[in-house]
């Protein structure tokens, strides 16, 4: 498998994960420092299904995502019921992330392998699957974001208390967003497992969660394609910076600071990457329609 192919797959996996977080962070305004745990759950679930029960890849991924989404209820129901502030929610997710990592490391069941992890996962992941799943995730998330569900999430982010008085069920909307994000992270985790074919629980640590959060914010809130682009950039950046050898990560951090400093709204806040093109197409279409009209006249 080629080098660029590998990075493109990594980027696609991250994009799938980000698609969920876009809704949680960019739309409803909750931020999580533990979403790697949902990747972990999805990864293990999908890997066990394909390795031991020979499930088809896509079905295993979906079930992995669904299990991740269900497990998000464990942390979501107690914390989102009261009006916990976004920062406190972040701490709760941080704790959940650590908890999942520790539990997974200590499960002695042979399927899980504890700290030794799981190896010999079928290598179903390839560039085609990765791009297709990333593409589908982006489309699904764009659809979700523009639907009434997405609008209600935005409303809650702007004015939580007022929105509740207007008639929005805050708890249900928040849980929905959390489950949505956990679902996509679970799928991303499953993709990861079937790409690397080997995984240990320590891979899904707090830094991964923070990287996910960073990509979403760097891409811009209330945007789906912005974060997707941000993720691609952040996946690619460490590789581009390889020529710096050991200074690479230092410069990576510096670039992050500089981007935030130059574009304090993120790359594409409140905008989508395809909007100008759509507008252009609409404009051209309206022109052509008018000209044919006039031609008929």
């Amino acid at each position: 498998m080629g080098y660029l192919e590998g990075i493109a797959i990594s980027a696609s996996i991250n994009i799938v994960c980000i698609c969920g977080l876009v809704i949680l962070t960019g739309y409803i305004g909750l931020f999580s420092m533990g979403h790697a745990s949902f990747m972990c759950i999805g990864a293990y679930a999908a890997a066990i299904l394909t390795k031991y029960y020979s499930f088809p890849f896509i079905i295993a991924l979906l079930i992995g995502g669904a299990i991740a989404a269900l497990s998000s209820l464990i942390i979501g129901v107690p914390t989102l019921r009261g009006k916990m502030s976004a920062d406190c929610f972040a701490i709760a997710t941080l704790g959940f992330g650590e908890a999942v990592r520790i539990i997974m490391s200590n499960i002695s069941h042979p399927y899980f392998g504890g700290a030794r992890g799981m190896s010999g996962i079928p290598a179903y992941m390839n560039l085609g699957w990765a791009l297709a799943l990333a593409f589908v995730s982006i489309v699904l998330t764009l659809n979700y974001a523009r639907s009434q569900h997405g609008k209600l999430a935005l409303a809650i982010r702007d004015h939580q208390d007022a929105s509740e008085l207007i008639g929005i069920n805050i708890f249900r909307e928040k849980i929905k967003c959390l489950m949505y994000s956990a679902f996509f992270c679970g799928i991303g985790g499953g993709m990861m497992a079937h790409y690397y074919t080997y995984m240990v629980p320590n891979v899904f640590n707090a830094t991964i969660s923070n990287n996910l959060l960073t990509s979403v914010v760097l891409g811009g809130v209330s945007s789906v394609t912005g974060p997707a682009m941000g993720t691609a950039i952040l996946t690619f950046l460490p590789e581009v910076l390889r020529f710096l050898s050991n200074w690479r990560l230092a410069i990576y951090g510096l670039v992050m600071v500089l981007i935030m400093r130059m574009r304090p709204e993120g790359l594409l806040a409140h905008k989508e990457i395809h909007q100008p093109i759509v507008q252009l197409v609409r404009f051209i279409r309206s022109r052509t329609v008018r000209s044919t009209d006039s031609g008929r006249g």
Partner: protein
Amino acid sequence: MDMFLQQLVTGISIGSVYALLAVGYALVFSVFNFSNFGFGPVMMLGTFSAFYAIPLLHLPLLPSILLAMVVAGLISFLMELTVYRPMRKKKTLKLYLMIAGLGINTFIPNAAIQIFGGGVHPFPSDWARATIQLNTIAVPRSDILAAVLSLVMLAALWLFLYKTRTGLGIRASSLDTDTAGLMGINVNFVAMIVFLLSGAAAGLAGCFYGMKYSVFPNMGAIASKGFVASTIGGLGSLAGAVISGLLLGFLETMIAAYGSSTYRDLIAYALLVIVLIFMPRGILGKGMQDKL
């Protein structure tokens, strides 16, 4: 019983490090409503300045701790000046400030590894390493110093905030930064003071951590515990930060002693989440009810 007292001493000493860090977070949060995620590097650089000053300048322990506080304060202020202030001027969401902080948190430690090397070093003070035997409990001198100096620092901070005009300005800004600006309070000046103070707290905490454990470029990672403590304490509440910092230290050591060291973090976080469920704004958090 011995075990309990020993763990209590340890809990208090690590708790006071958490508390100082939490106060640093809370100071910035109370005025600017965001958590400075670039706080770990501030602590690390402060500690390294003391680490190099002691052998190179032959500074005694206390002046070198003071130096660490000054250096950390200045670095924290430099961060505000170069990164946060320009971003705040553009009225960005606080999430963006936090991500910029995460960027700093990647940049400085990794640069430090290349400059200082990746090794782990002892804090160069033999005095601090010795222990005092109280009955059956061993108390390191550094722990006593940590407890005393943290108290002094917190008392000084309290006096400053509640007994001086500048302190009044800071408290006014913490209620409403925009209005405070309109009322003639120089918000930039307040920012300078707040970042200097929070940096100084980090420098102090870093020295204690260094004395108790070691000095290395990634030691700033411990600051995340300070973030947890300041959030649980009620964001922006200094008293809450101190309480929950000590509580976190206490919980960690006690769970390790009487619960399970494998599941220590898991149990500690579970307890904290339970606290949050019953006190969604943290232990001493301000009620942030939207005025409709």
